[in-house]
Each structure stands twice: as C-alpha cells, then as structure tokens.
C-alpha cells in the first residue's frame, strides 16, 4: 500500500547509482577515481564479465566491503562519444568475433543476442523486463518437460522486487504469473501499439503496457525517456536501464574495479583444486596477465562462460574446468522469436517510441488444448530500416519488390513472440577447431529444435496472424528468428545433472561461481535480463552470509 502511494518516488535501498550520475553528461563519472588493484593483490572476488550478472554481483558485494575486480573484454563506454542514434553505426556493441553455428536449426549470433563492453548486452537490449513465472521453476514436475530448478520463485521474489525498483521498471499492474505492480507508471503508447492492442482485444487476448526498464519520470540524475526509438542502439539518454547506469556507478563508489579491454582466457586452478585467479590478455598492451583472487565468478553468458571453462584445461580437469561430468555447455536455450508485421492504410511510423511497448503473457503457461507444453509471450517490436529490410528479405523479396516494401515502411507495425523452447543436452557450446587472435579456440553452438518447439512456434505465429486480422491489417509479412540466450552451465541437484549448485557454486571447484544467465535450467517466455540480475543479487546475499 505504501509503495502505491510512493509510486515512482521510492529510492532503492541498496543502490545509489542513479544519484551518482552526472545530469549534464552520460557515462560513469566516478570512473576517474576508481580504485585499482595489482594483479598480485589477492582480491576477494574476480568476476569475468561486466554485464547484467557480473555487474550486480560486483555492486552488491562491493557495498559489503568485498574487494572486487571485474574483467571485461570490451570497452568502458562513454555514451556521449561512443554511441550513436544509428543502426549500422552501433556495430561495436556486439560480440562480432568469429563463432561457428551448427545443428539442424542454427542460431545466428552477433547483433541479435550478444554484447561486448561494460554493461554487456543490456546496453542494446530492447528493455522488456518481465519476471519469470513461478511455474518456470518446476516445469519438469508440472508439465513433464524441461527441468526443475533447485530454487523456487519465492527465493527470487525479493530480488525481483529490488531490481524492479533499481532499474526501474515501468508498466501497468501485471496480472500474469505472480501478480505484481511496477514502481514507474506505464509509458504512453504509439499508434502502432494501439493497433496491436485493439486487434488483441477483439481476438480475446489481454495486453498490458510494459514492463520496460525505462524511466517514466526522473530517477536521481537519470532523465525521463524521450521516445526516440533507438533502444537497441544503446540509450544515449540514460533512460533505459543497463548496468552501466544502474549498478556500476554504485559498485565503483564502493571500491570495485571495472577493468575494461581485458579478455579472460583461463581460470587458473591451484594444486589443491581451488581457483587461484584469472589469466587474461590486456588488450591495450597485448600482455598476458593473471589477477589473483580468493574466489572467482564467471559471468560471460551462455557462449563465453562455457568457452572459458572448456578452455581452462588442467590435470584435474582434462576436458575443461568443471566438465568431468560432461555438463559444461549443455542445455543452451534460445527463444523462438518469430515476428509478424501488419500493414495499415495510414502512416504508423514504427521508428517512433521505444520498440518495447505492450505485451501479453496470456499464453505463457501450458494449455493441453494447444497440443504442446509450455507457451509464449507476445510483445511489440519496432524495427528500424535495416532490421525491416531483413524482415522483408525473409518474406522472399529482393530487387523491385524489396524496394517497394521498403518504401512502404511507415505503414507497417511489427509484433513478435518469445516461445519457450525446451532445454536439450545436445544444444551445446563446444570449442571449434579455429582459434581467435589470442590463440583461444572460438565457440561453436549447435542448436536443434524438438517437436514441441516447432508446434509452439507455429501456434504463436497463428495467434499473431489472428491479432493482425482483427486489427484489420491489409497485409502481413513474417520472419522466423530467435532471441536471447540462456543456459549452458545450469544449476541443478547433483554434479551429474548440472555444473553448479543452487547457490551457483560449481560442484567441482569450491571457490568458483557462475554468475550469469547460463545457470538457468529453463527460460520461460520472459526476456532474461531481470532474472539474471535478480539471481546475482541473491548470489551476493548468499556469498556475504557464507563468508
């Protein structure tokens, strides 16, 4: 009740990041006085990766007095200088080094689902920040598919609430999963999203505005969103959340060091089988160095975390660190993210307003009548011209037809789904034969859908077509694609079914933790960012109580 009264105005309990920013310029002001540690100085925790998982863990533990070093492969962004309101010019935000993809249904990587640089892929995520549903934590027992988590929704709930306040998340009261409200009010919606809404209503589908991690009103020194539509190119406004503005300023204020341009290549294991630190390349000088640490947390996400472990070979772990049970890199998941565009006689101009506007989780849970287990979420997505041209190409158009569909850009609006695809052991990250500039084998990701996945995607596309029909769209265009990554080093009940335990401690190495989305045994139909952050906040609680 009190939170309702204070809507939008309550300051987070454990995080001053928004108040540490400079109102006149973007970037992290206290970076200039960031504490530095020597490689030989055994810090309390060395984290690999400054994305959603690593940044929250660093911030929480630095607040509790831990000496933390975060190694980040990419750059420390200065958004005023480095980011642009431009699709092609935003290439530097992605992990664009070589990776190999295979399997029957290969997952394209790069701009769609990878990130590099301080802030990770949240720098260019759309901004949707839904929670997982309670059912996601027990799909094996409830629905006979996927896997059960060793933790329940209830254990994550307080951290979801904290994160929603810290990002902050804006949206209408949420009726699905565990019903809850958001700290910031729903944003106004564009004409295109209004059409989706009307079509959905007529089709008997409930939609809600949000939930998006975009300020609606000021928060500390973060301003209101200006609806410029370039969320996927990095928010130059500081309105959309990424760890660069939501957690790292506070982490640095409490003594954490974010060491950018440093590529981890190996976790070093001592003769007692404990992690001794992280070997990394200082990409500025080319020097190979090692940061000593009392504990190590790997937060490189579903591709790079397994790759780092698999490359960390030692006599105790000849097939890769923590991989003696052959679990590392398995159960990688993506979401089936087909999109259907609808054409309208009037101008819609989908480039205005943030791409994430309204969404529905009405189809999230299993409904036996649909003929498959689990479900999907519906969300608006608004492509900029290059993304729209890929959509048109996927419709089989090139030459004159493509040009004509492109000229019609302002008449189209696009919605997408996130289908929960099931975890499968063969969907796996392994090491390819080729190596990168530092001699480390590049990652290979094999991906193959199961029948349940295919039925889910086909059904979800039918629902989108029905919404556009009800919205009186004149024409539709469909693209099949994937979104998000999760899994690859999952938490579980024993060393034979997983890489780490319920507290994200690897079964094989007592002072080595996994602190990113790769620990998730299932993915639901939710965008993963909020859950990854909430898991790290929970991990930090556990570590500081255990220490």
């Amino acid at each position: 009740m009190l939170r309702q009264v204070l809507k939008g105005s309550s300051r987070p309990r454990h995080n001053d990041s928004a108040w540490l920013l400079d109102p006149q310029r973007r970037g992290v002001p206290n970076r200039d006085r960031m504490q530095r540690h020597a490689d030989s100085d055994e810090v309390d925790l060395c984290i690999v990766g400054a994305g959603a998982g690593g940044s929250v863990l660093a911030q929480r533990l630095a607040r509790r007095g831990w000496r933390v070093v975060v190694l980040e492969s990419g750059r420390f962004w200065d958004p005023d200088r480095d980011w642009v309101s431009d699709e092609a010019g935003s290439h530097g935000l992605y992990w664009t080094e070589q990776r190999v993809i295979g399997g029957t249904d290969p997952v394209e990587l790069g701009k769609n689902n990878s990130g590099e640089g301080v802030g990770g892929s949240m720098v260019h995520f759309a901004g949707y920040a839904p929670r997982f549903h309670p059912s996601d934590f027990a799909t094996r027992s409830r629905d006979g598919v996927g896997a059960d988590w060793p933790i329940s929704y209830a254990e994550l709930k307080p951290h979801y609430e904290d994160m929603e306040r810290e990002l902050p998340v804006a949206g209408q009261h949420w009726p699905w999963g565990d019903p809850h409200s958001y700290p910031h009010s729903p944003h106004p919606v564009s004409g295109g999203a209004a059409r989706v809404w009307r079509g959905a209503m007529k089709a008997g589908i409930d939609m809600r505005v949000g939930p998006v991690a975009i300020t609606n009103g000021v928060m500390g020194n973060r301003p209101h969103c200006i609806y410029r539509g370039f969320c996927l190119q990095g928010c130059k406004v500081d309105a959309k959340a990424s760890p660069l503005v939501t957690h790292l300023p506070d982490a640095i204020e409490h003594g954490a060091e974010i060491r950018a341009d440093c590529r981890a290549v190996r976790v070093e294991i001592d003769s007692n089988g404990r992690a001794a630190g992280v070997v990394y390349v200082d990409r500025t000088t080319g020097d190979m160095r090692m940061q000593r640490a009392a504990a190590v947390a790997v937060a490189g996400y579903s591709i790079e975390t397994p790759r780092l472990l698999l490359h960390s070979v030692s006599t105790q772990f000849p097939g890769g660190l923590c991989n003696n049970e052959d679990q590392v890199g398995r159960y990688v998941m993506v979401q089936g993210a087909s999109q259907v565009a609808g054409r309208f006689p009037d101008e819609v101009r989908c480039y205005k307003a943030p791409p994430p506007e309204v969404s529905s989780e009405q189809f999230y849970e299993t409904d036996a009548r649909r003929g498959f287990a689990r479900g999907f979420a519906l969300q608006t997505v608004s492509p900029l011209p290059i993304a729209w041209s890929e959509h048109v190409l996927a419709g089989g158009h090139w030459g004159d037809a493509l040009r004509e569909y492109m000229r019609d850009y302002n008449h189209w609006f696009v919605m997408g789904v996130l289908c929960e695809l099931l975890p499968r052991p063969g969907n796996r990250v392994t090491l390819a034969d080729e190596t990168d500039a530092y001699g480390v084998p590049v990652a290979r990701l094999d991906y193959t859908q199961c029948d349940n996945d295919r039925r889910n995607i086909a059904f979800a596309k039918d629902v989108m077509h029905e919404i556009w029909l009800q919205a009186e769209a004149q024409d539709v265009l469909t693209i099949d694609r994937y979104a998000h990554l999760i899994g690859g080093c999952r938490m579980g009940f024993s060393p034979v079914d997983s890489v780490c335990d319920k507290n994200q401690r690897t079964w094989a190495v007592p002072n080595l933790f996994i602190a990113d989305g790769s620990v998730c045994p299932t993915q639901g139909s939710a965008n993963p960012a909020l859950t990854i952050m909430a898991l790290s906040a929970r991990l930090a609680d556990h570590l500081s109580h255990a220490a």
Partner: protein
Amino acid sequence: MVGRYPDFDVMQSADTWDDATRAVVEQRLRSPTDLRFFDAAEAVTAAAFSDTVTAQDREPRVPVVAMIDKKYAESRHDGYRYDDMPDDATTWHLALRGLDEVARRRYGSDFAGCPNEVRNAIVEQFAGGSLQGGVWDTFNCKRAFSVLMRGVLAEFYSHPWAWNEIGFGGPAYPRGYMRLGEGLREPHEKPEALQRDPVRDTETAR
C-alpha cells in the same frame, strides 16, 4: 531517389543530432575511398549484384560496394558463420566468382555484362539455393545469398538517401519525439506526397 516523400530530406535535421551520430551519418555521404577488399573485377560483379537486388538502375546510386569494401577492409565482422560455410569475407569472393561463372556459362558474359532479365534469373536461383556447378558445389548456396544480402541491405539502408526514400525520420537524439499516438506527426515530419496504397490499389487493378 524521390520515392513517396519528395519534400523530405533527413539531412535537414542533422543540426539537431548529437556530434557522434552526425559524424557517422555524414561520413556515408562522402566520396568512397579506393577499394581495398575487392579487386577491380570483383567490384564490377559486386556492383551488378547489388544493383540487381536493390533495384538501383540509375545514378546517383548508394555506393553499396564501396561501403562493403570498407567494412571488410576494416575487418568488421558479424560474429558468426555457419559450419558449412567459409567466413563471410571468403564467401563474398567465392560467390562473386560463382556469379561470373554461371553468367558465362549461360550468356557468354560476366554477370555484369548480362541483361537485367538474365541477372534476375540468376539471382532468383541464388536466392532459392539452386545454383550448381563450380564454386556453387563447394558451399551452401542459400546461406551464401543470405551473407551477401545481409551485407548489401545493412549498407543500403544505412544511407540517408534510402532513409529519404522510405520516410524514416533518422537519428532523434537529443530531440526525441513528443507525438506518438495514432495520426500524430511531429512538425518536422512530412506526410507522404503520393497516396498510393499498394495493397488496395493492386486489388482494384485486378
């Protein structure tokens, strides 16, 4: 490229953009530099392919080939390759050679020397994955098409002339938008001049 928005020039808003964005966009309007990735013969074939798939048939053209050349000369990659494909740069070299091979076999000329209908027929098969013989037997034809198209479209639709044609408002920081709702337009957004409706008008014509 006049298109449906003859009175709209996105560059007229350039003074409302932040410096970093303006520099990136204005750079695309400068004269292309000398080729570093494609050789001269490849560039001719690449230009013919690019013209065919983007339906560019007159000057001024968006200099797609020079933009792609710059991308690969600067080793900017997209972050993945299929396991049955070489890397993207090699795919470009091979596919261009393959287009010329097919054109010579069918028409006795390089791809660029073929009339439009021959080029279109070859690209149709390229898109459908059915080109065969020579280099086409060494990799996945359909995926090669997607590699080339990804490259062409990313450059073409990053160019302000293409934005003008489709009525895209372009960069919008720090100005942003205030009028999001149905039927609303910012003062600087121009309506379409040609109220042709491709869906309705085609149906009427039938």
